[in-house]
């Protein structure tokens, strides 16, 4: 196991070391003290534990790695993640998992506004509530919210499937509640299990998605 202490080693050196070819094993990063861009751009099957709160873009663009943030995360945690797992034990600020294309992001606490904005294939599971504009323009992937969602859930959503246990303050443009069919219950069960919530009853969730009325510009003629 390798340990870095960000109160002593500059972030640049730590990230450079994490980009070393053939990286493997377990890595601990102590003392993040809210630093931005901690453990970004990883592309190796490693386990990284960050012991404390992070600033913006923690584990941004992650590939393969399993990153645990023991604390809260700032704006854009795991933004554009490709694969792997990012787990925030506390809460996350705005735009968590923004534009993510793969992998799993788990947020133990709450997530701020625009969680899952423009998500493109990532799976996100939020233990608590999410803020306004959750899953704004979400294109693909699945988003699970175990608590409530703020205003305009799923505004202008494309093909992302949203599973919500609590209530949404309001639904955004083109976002509608959809029927929970057996395949959805099964999918949700798998997501909850993967995120560490195996005891949740999938049947207590509702599904939301796109009404697909915004997919085409409407002209009063055929062109």
């Amino acid at each position, binding site marked *: 196991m390798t340990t870095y202490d960000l109160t002593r080693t500059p972030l640049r050196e730590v990230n450079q070391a994490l980009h070393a070819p053939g990286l493997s094993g377990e890595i601990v990063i102590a003392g993040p003290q809210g630093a931005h861009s901690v453990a970004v751009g990883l592309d190796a099957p490693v386990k990284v534990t960050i012991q404390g709160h992070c600033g913006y873009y923690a584990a941004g*663009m992650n590939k393969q790695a399993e990153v645990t943030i023991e604390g809260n995360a700032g704006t854009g945690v795991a933004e554009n993640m490709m694969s792997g797992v990012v787990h925030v034990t506390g809460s996350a600020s705005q735009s968590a998992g923004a534009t993510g294309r793969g992998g799993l992001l788990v947020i133990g606490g709450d997530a701020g506004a625009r969680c899952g904005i423009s998500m493109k294939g990532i799976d996100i599971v939020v233990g608590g509530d999410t803020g306004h504009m959750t899953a704004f323009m979400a*294109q693909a992937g699945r988003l699970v919210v175990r608590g409530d969602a703020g205003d305009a859930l799923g505004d202008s959503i494309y093909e992302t499937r949203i599973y919500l246990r609590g209530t949404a303050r309001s639904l955004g443009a083109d976002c509608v509640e959809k029927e929970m069919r057996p395949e959805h219950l099964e999918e949700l069960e798998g997501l909850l299990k993967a995120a560490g919530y195996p005891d949740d009853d999938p049947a207590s969730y509702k599904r939301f998605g796109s009404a697909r009325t915004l997919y085409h510009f409407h002209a*009063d003629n055929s062109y």
Partner: protein
Amino acid sequence: MTLTPDERARRGLRESATFDRTTIAAIQRAAETGIYDIRGWGAKRALPHFDDLLFLGASMSRYPLEGYRERCGTDVVLGGRNAKYPLHLDIPVTIAGMSFGALGAHAKEALGRAASAVGTSTTTGDGGMTPEERGHSKTLVYQYLPNRYGMNPDDLRRADAIEVVLGQGAKPGGGGMLLGQKVSERVAGMRTLPVGIDQRSSSRHPDWTGPDDLAIKIAELREITDGEKPIYVKVGATRTYYDTRLAVEAGADVVVVDGMQGGTAATQEVFIEHVGIPTLAAIPLAVQALQELGLHRKPDGVQLIVSGGIRNGADVAKCLALGADAVAIGTAALIALGDNDPRYDTEYARLGSAAGFYDQFQAGQDPAGITTQDEELQRNLDPEEGGRRLANFLRVLTMEAQTVARACGKAHVTHLEPEDLVAISIEAAAMAKVPLAGTSWIPGQDGGF
């Protein structure tokens, strides 16, 4: 029915200046369809532009360089301020970002071939990076856009520079558009969208807003790429002085300013014609910001790339004289590839247009095979031949700029300066901040009015 001006005069027909025929047609179109007009190309209205500037060639008080014998350099280095590997380009003319999606794969390949042949860079666009494009481009700038379609860290690392796009001159404050006809299976796959939808994309980045956030975003991009690549920031020309200052303070190595004449693949007409400021007005504002920061044309400075309506070597030379380090071309590059070629007259007529007027880049039916995803139409563009034509055009732009620079006594095109220029209209003099020809008057300066 088209009447000649003579016939109209004989019949006593007078066209309204306010409600001219274009305006009348626009009202009729809106009433018929209930949707705003979306088109390609750039602003079509007349604007103060580079044609309103002239060079003062050398004579008695300055001496020229010999046209074909004395060296006049054209190379530029971009992004040396922070990047480990700045770009070294042989010519100061680059290819602007145009998306795969807006353009077909043949067109993107042709752009890459041309840029590589003459030692300059080309740029990706809204839809991500294609292997063809990377393969055919020696130097490729990767756009980082609000919608992040196709965005992935591997392509980021494969790029030679990264361009964070805040806006485009044709639509500052607007997001991308790609109509269903062009959202083919491949385009949709790259963008993670359903096939055939009218794609409307975001106008703000999803995970940052404002200059303080941008600084953190740029730092993240540097961390991910280990500080290797220059980071550009592209803005549509509006509050250009402040945008330039803020971009530089946020860490940009290169600032790209795109004037309102800049081309687009698909934007609302109202946006194209009514939002933004002319390229001519934007350049001095960006230069002023860089000068005040002590970073203009300095070895570790920030470079300025200007685009929007650049058509010939004189335009290139005028941009450089006003303080740009390089320029970017979009529309002119497409024309060089074959866009609006009279040999497609019949096809243009069938589409209700004509060579010289065709701007329906959004429709995906381009007879020249450039702004389309249709396999059949794309056969009309041979990427090698297109690449050869565009390389020729880029060479001409460079030789023309050199011709002017030598005439002004400069051993390098970037030695051109505002002092070499005069304006022939008061508007251009005020915007470009060069004197009206035959006077020492720069409107708005030194207490002038």
